[in-house]
């Protein structure tokens, strides 16, 4: 069998929330050995929030145990659908710091997502770790980066997104802009960060050189909006919010279908697409209205056109409209709910949402690989690691700490 992309790579994962794990996960999916450091006193927010799962009642006893309760955090199952090793460390104990250092010596890569100072004040900054492991890659992701006036400000996706421009691109002309989702860049910046991380690994394997990478999530986020930056820089123009209107397509937007709050999105740009659209609609008289004969005309009279289209779509389900129009080469898609995605035929063809058994979460079908598929390597999915699940294994087997010392450390509160 072909070697997996990150076979033999050793990764230390000191991340929290979404952005950090989403980056180290790229390595875990494809064969790296990843050791995740956590603590019980400062648990990952995704272990706490996201809504406890409805099976809590079935596991009432475990749920009352504050430590075990952290395994019920459903969001953590989304941020950690991969096989990681878990160690719980008390970094306020000098021996905990020491174990961190030993792991940083063992590792090829350290991925972390704390604000400036968290590691430095414990003697675990890049300068310190570089001395003990010169080939270490230290990949640091933070909302605002590790320099500048906001370096020590923790960043949460909800507020970080605000400083990327992403909260200003969606809205109706007569109302204030609305967010696309609640922590949008948390899901987009890991693509840039993860790509940078793997680039550094590739470089390390070729040259033996380590380095420190500083990802400011706002800077990664802005890189998706470059055309808007250039438009302002060159033309002093700001994006106008247009609701669902588009200057180069009509019909364009969501159209109401059968059922409650059911919609299909349609966009018609070229004359060829318009002809296909008219054919599917059955060439009624309004499609022959000369005002709709050109793209310019359709855009200029899009309100009236939308009324016709809405009257047509109302008689069908969103799936029917999508199928009919796509068969004619017209871009159309169901405005999908989470339930639609669960049943989506395309995602099924890719085995996207996979079912896994978890002792406390039960059987759930929502663990998934990233948005790309490799022909020679499978993304492996696994139930999320428990807090400190492998503390003993990591200490005794990976670091070679004698069993008696480990027991003593346990008693001394080195692990948390």
């Amino acid at each position, binding site marked *: 069998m072909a070697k997996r992309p990150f076979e033999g790579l050793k990764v230390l994962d000191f991340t929290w929330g979404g952005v950090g794990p989403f980056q180290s996960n790229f390595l875990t999916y494809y064969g790296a050995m990843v050791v995740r450091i956590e603590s019980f006193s400062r648990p990952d927010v995704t272990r706490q929030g996201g809504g406890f799962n409805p099976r809590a009642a079935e596991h009432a006893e475990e749920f009352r145990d504050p430590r075990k309760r952290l395994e019920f955090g459903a969001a953590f199952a989304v941020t950690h659908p991969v096989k990681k090793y878990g160690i719980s460390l008390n970094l306020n104990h000098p021996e905990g710091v020491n174990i961190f250092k030993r792991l940083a010596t063992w590792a090829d890569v350290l991925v972390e997502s704390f604000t400036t100072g968290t590691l430095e004040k414990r003697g675990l900054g890049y300068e310190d770790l570089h001395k003990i492991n010169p080939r270490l890659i230290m990949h640091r992701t933070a909302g605002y980066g590790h320099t500048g006036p906001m370096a020590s400000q923790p960043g949460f996706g909800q507020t970080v997104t605000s400083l990327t421009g992403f909260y200003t691109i969606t809205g109706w002309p007569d109302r*204030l802009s609305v967010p696309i*989702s609640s922590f949008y860049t948390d899901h987009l910046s890991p693509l840039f960060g993860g790509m940078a991380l793997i680039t550094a690994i*590739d470089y390390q394997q070729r040259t033996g050189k380590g380095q420190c990478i500083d990802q400011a999530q706002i800077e990664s986020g802005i890189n998706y909006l470059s055309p808007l930056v250039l438009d302002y*820089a060159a033309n002093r123009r*700001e994006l106008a919010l247009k609701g669902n209107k588009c200057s180069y397509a009509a019909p364009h*937007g969501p159209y109401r279908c059968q059922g409650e709050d059911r919609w299909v999105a349609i966009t018609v740009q070229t004359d060829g697409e318009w002809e296909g659209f008219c054919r599917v609609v059955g060439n009624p008289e309004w499609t022959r209205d000369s005002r709709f004969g050109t793209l310019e005309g359709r855009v200029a009279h899009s309100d009236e056109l939308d009324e016709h289209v809405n009257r047509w779509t109302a008689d069908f389900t969103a799936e029917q409209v999508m199928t009919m129009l796509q068969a004619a080469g017209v871009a159309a898609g169901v405005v999908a709910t989470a339930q639609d995605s669960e049943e989506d035929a395309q995602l099924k063809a890719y085995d996207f949402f996979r079912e896994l058994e978890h002792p406390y979460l039960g059987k759930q079908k929502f663990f998934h*690989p990233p948005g790309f598929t490799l022909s020679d390597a499978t993304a492996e999915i696994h139930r999320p690691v428990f807090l400190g699940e492998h503390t003993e294994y990591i200490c005794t087997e990976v670091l070679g700490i004698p069993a008696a010392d480990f027991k003593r450390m346990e008693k001394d509160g080195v692990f948390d």
Partner: protein
Amino acid sequence: MLSCYRVLDLTDEKGFLCGKSLGDFGADVIKIEKPGGDPGRSIGPFYHDSPEPEKSLYWFAFNANKRGITLDIETADGREIFKRLVRTADVVIESFKPGYLDGLGLGYQVLSSINPAVILTSISGFGQKGPYRDFNDRDLAVWALSGYMYITGEPDRPPLAPSYPHAHLVGAMNGAVGTMVALCQRRLTGHGQQVDASSHQGLCFAISIETKLPWAFQRINVSREGRDRVRVMARDGQVKLPLLWECKDGSIAFFFWIGPNFVKHNQDLVRWIRESGIDPGLLAGWDWEKETWSRFTVAEVKEIRRTLEQFFMKYTKMELNDLSLEKRIQLTPVLAPKDLLQFPQLVERGFWRQVEHPELGESITYPGGFVKVGEGDCGIRFRAPLIGEHNEEIYKGELQMSTTDLVNLKERRVI
């Protein structure tokens, strides 16, 4: 870091960003356009609003750090030239309709027989297989099927798509990550492979925690909530608070966190509210260590909302930014590119870069690198190519063609 790699970039706007991100780390990316120029050059906005192929700001933004040649791979000569280029390439990126390259006799099997180490990265709306493979994958259709459209917008209006469509940028970046994974595997196996990146799957991944999770666990169907995206459980029911709040001159983002990590944060916030001259009301009596939202009724949560609304309206967004930094409160101004160009954190980090455009006689400000690295650089080195700008450099300099060959190919519209 990637200067040892050569990338042939056949993409349209669905894939521009993939090659650009590799170029940001120094890869030698050669953008291959149809003779006459890539259709992506017709995407606005345009420099000084002149809709010309050499003035598309969209093209500038996502094709910087690439050299450019023209080549029609639909001609037999064009295919042969492309095959010669594949011999020395590490990566080929494409975003044609699935199966198009196979139809031209340039599918993965053929490329791999020329150069077994080559990686073929395909970027598309829905992927290279499955029932949607041949769908028209314009941005809006992919965006709708991803689930983002359904949850964006106001509850009293239809679902809403962004006025800046960007679904395919997510597919392109998935392609870039996949390409790097494939390069790492190649060092272990010696072989290239195919990377199949889908904007649809990339977005379904992104939205997962927001909609898929509540559906999988509690059969909650997340829908449109406008700005009210913070759900809290009051004693007598659920109630929503805004994520984005109005202030004196715009909006700010403030997500009302509670819990053990936010005890001091929320105490500081209440102190600030009082200092501003607003009565913190119900917030004043909240024991942040012990109590959750269940302390309050829905009506009381609404009263807290009004207190916060009044408080934020006392300040401008930049006043709130400065004061929240000083007091370490999780609050940020909602900024557009215009404001971001002046924003202290980005300015101080030297994020913005001036890129020279000699043909336009000026420099334009671009976003800088998406990360800061210790080895080499990440960011813009040079502007996007003009149509066929590097034809001579590559065809003559590398493929040893003569001037006569070039004229000949040009006359036959191959280049």
